[in-house]
C-alpha cells in the first residue's frame, strides 16, 4: 500500500490526512445546514491540498505543489466564497434542512421522517391523507378473533367433507375447475375491441351429422401491442441499420476514402 515503501512518519501523515478528509466527507453528508456544509467542504479542500503537498514533498513531484495550491485556492477559498454569497443573497439557509440531509436521505430516513407521524404514514400533511399499515397489522388480527370465536363457538357438529357440487354431474374436479381461459373470458369479451378474440370450432361429423367424430376448437387473442407498438419501432431501427450498413462494409479502401474525405472537409473548413 501507500505506506509500504515510505518512512513511518510520512506514511502516518498521509494516512491521517486521507482518513481526515474521509471523515470530513461523512460530516458533510450529515450536516443539516448549507453553511456548515460549505465550511466543512473548505476544510476538506485544505486537507486535500496539504495531502497533495506532502505527497509532492516526500515523493519529489514538483507539479503536485501546483495541484495543492490550485485545490486550496479554488476548492478551499473561491468556490465556498461564491456559494456563501449566493446563500446570503437568496437567504436559503432554512430550506437546506431536507435537501442536504444526505446521510439519512441515503437510507430514506429524512423522507421517512417527514412522511410518518407516530405510527401513521402521512403522504403530504396530516390533514390530507394518512394510513397506518403497522396499526392495521396489529388491529386486524385482533379483530379477526371475533369471527374465529363465532365459528368455533357455534360448531356443534363435526365437519363433513363432500365433493364439490357441479349441478348434479360428477366430473373430474381437476378437469372441471375454472381455467384461465374461463376466468378471463369476461375480460376478453368486454374489451374485445382491444383483444379481438377469435374462436374457431370445427366439427367433423358423419354423413347424417348426428355423431361428431372430431371436434377441434381453437382460440386466440389478436395481438395489439405487438403490431401497433413494438413492430413499428423494430422496423424503424432495422431500416436505419440497413441504410447504414454500407458504411461498415469492411473494405479498407472505403474507410481510407472516408478518412480522406474527412481530411478534405477539415482542410476546407480551416481554409474557409
Amino acid at each position, binding site marked *: 500500500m501507500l505506506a509500504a515503501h515510505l518512512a513511518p512518519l510520512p506514511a502516518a501523515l498521509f494516512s491521517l490526512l486521507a482518513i481526515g478528509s474521509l471523515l470530513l466527507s461523512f460530516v458533510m453528508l450529515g450536516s443539516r445546514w448549507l453553511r456548515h456544509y460549505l465550511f466543512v467542504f473548505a476544510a476538506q479542500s485544505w486537507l486535500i491540498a496539504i495531502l497533495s503537498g506532502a505527497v509532492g514533498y516526500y515523493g519529489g513531484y514538483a507539479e503536485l505543489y501546483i495541484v495543492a495550491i490550485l485545490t486550496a485556492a479554488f476548492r478551499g477559498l473561491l468556490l465556498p466564497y461564491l456559494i456563501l454569497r449566493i446563500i446570503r443573497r437568496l437567504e436559503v439557509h432554512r430550506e437546506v434542512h431536507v435537501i442536504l440531509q444526505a446521510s439519512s436521505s441515503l437510507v430514506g430516513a429524512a423522507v421517512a421522517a417527514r412522511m410518518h407521524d407516530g405510527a401513521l404514514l402521512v403522504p403530504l400533511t396530516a390533514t390530507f*391523507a394518512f394510513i397506518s399499515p403497522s396499526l392495521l397489522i396489529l388491529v386486524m388480527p385482533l379483530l379477526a378473533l371475533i369471527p374465529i370465536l*363465532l*365459528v368455533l363457538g357455534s360448531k356443534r357438529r*363435526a365437519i363433513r*367433507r363432500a*365433493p364439490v357440487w357441479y*349441478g348434479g354431474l360428477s366430473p373430474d374436479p381437476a378437469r372441471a375447475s375454472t381455467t384461465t381461459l374461463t376466468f378471463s373470458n369476461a*375480460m376478453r369479451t*368486454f374489451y374485445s375491441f382491444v383483444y379481438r378474440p377469435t374462436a374457431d370450432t370445427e366439427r367433423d361429423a358423419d354423413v347424417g351429422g348426428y355423431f361428431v367424430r372430431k371436434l377441434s376448437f381453437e382460440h386466440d387473442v389478436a395481438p395489439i401491442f405487438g403490431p401497433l407498438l413494438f413492430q413499428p419501432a423494430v422496423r424503424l431501427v432495422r431500416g436505419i441499420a440497413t441504410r447504414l450498413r454500407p458504411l461498415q462494409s469492411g473494405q479498407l479502401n472505403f474507410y481510407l476514402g472516408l478518412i480522406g474525405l474527412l481530411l478534405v472537409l477539415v482542410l476546407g473548413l480551416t481554409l474557409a
Partner: protein
Amino acid sequence: MRLGPAVLSLANSIEAAAEAPCCGRPALTGRDIALQLAQVLSVLLLAPLLQGVILQFEERVQRSQGLGLFQPYRDLWKLFHKQIVVPETASWLYWAAPIVAFTTTLTVPILIPVLTDYPLPLSDMGDILGGGLVLTLGSFMITLAGLDTRSAYGGIGSSRAVMVAILAEPTLILVFVGITLLAKAMLPFVVNHLLVAEPSIYWGPTHLFLVAAFFVLLLVETDRLPIHSSTHIEIYMIEEGRILEYSGPILAILRWASMMKEFILYTIFCNVLLFPWGLSRQGAALGILGSLGALALKFLVVACVVVAVETVQSRLRFYRYQEPLAASFLLAILAIVGTQLG
C-alpha cells in the same frame, strides 16, 4: 381559491383531533374508546336490520307479505346452528377468506364517522382510500376462495366479480379524486365538516355529481339491480356464486360480512357525502342516541331510493354492465370538471 381559509381552519381542528391518539395527549379517554366500540358494534348488530328493511320494503312494494324486518337475524341464527360441509378440494384459503372478509368489515367502521363527526381512537389507521383498500382485501379473499374449491360456479362468480370490480374501479378512483379536489383532503371527517359548514359547496355541481356517481357505485358494490340481483337461484349469480360452496357458521360469517359491507357503504354515502348532518359532536350519550336515530332516518331514505331502483329497473345483461358504470364514470368526470371551473 375560495375554499382556502375555511378548509384550513377546519383542517387544523381536524388535525388536532386526529393527532391526539398518537401523540400521547389526554384524548384517549374511556369515553372515546367506548364510542369507538359502539361504532363497531352498531355496524355489527344493525347491518342485518338494514338488509331486512330493504328486503321487506321490496316485498311490500310487490304487494306481498314479506318475511319481516328481522329475517336476516333469523337466517344468521339458523346458519350458526348448521353443520359445516367442506368441499374435498378446499385448501386453507377456504377457511381464511370468511375470517378475513369479516375482519375487514369490522375494521372499516373504526375509520369512518358512524356516530361521531370527530375522529375516535384508531380512526387514523386509514383515510377513505385506506378504508377502500381494506374493504377490497375482503372481496379479494372471497374471489380467491371462489376459485380455490374448483367449483365451476365459484370460478364463474369470481371471474364476474373481478370483471365488475374492473369496470367499477375507474369510477371509484375518480370519485376519490373528486372528493380530494373538493375538500383538499382524503379524510372522511374533513369532507363531512366541509359539507356541513359550506352550503355553497354542498349544493355545488361537484358534490352533487359525486353523490350521483357514488350512488351507482353503491348499487354495484352492494349487489343490487341493475347490475346483479342477489337471488341464489340463477345461473347469472355473482356474489352468491363465489360463496356457493360455503355452509353453516362460515356461510353465516360471509353473509354477515356482506351485510356489514352494505352498512359501511351506506354510512360513507350518508355521513360523508349525502347527509353530513346529524352526527354527534360531543360524544354524549344523548348525542349518540340522536345520531343513531339520524342514521336510521338517512338509511331509510337511501333504502327507499334503492328499493325504487330495484323495482323499476330490470337486470341488465352481463355484457351491458358497463353502461351504468360508464354513466357514473361520466358523472365523476363532470364532478372533477366542476372543481376546475369553480
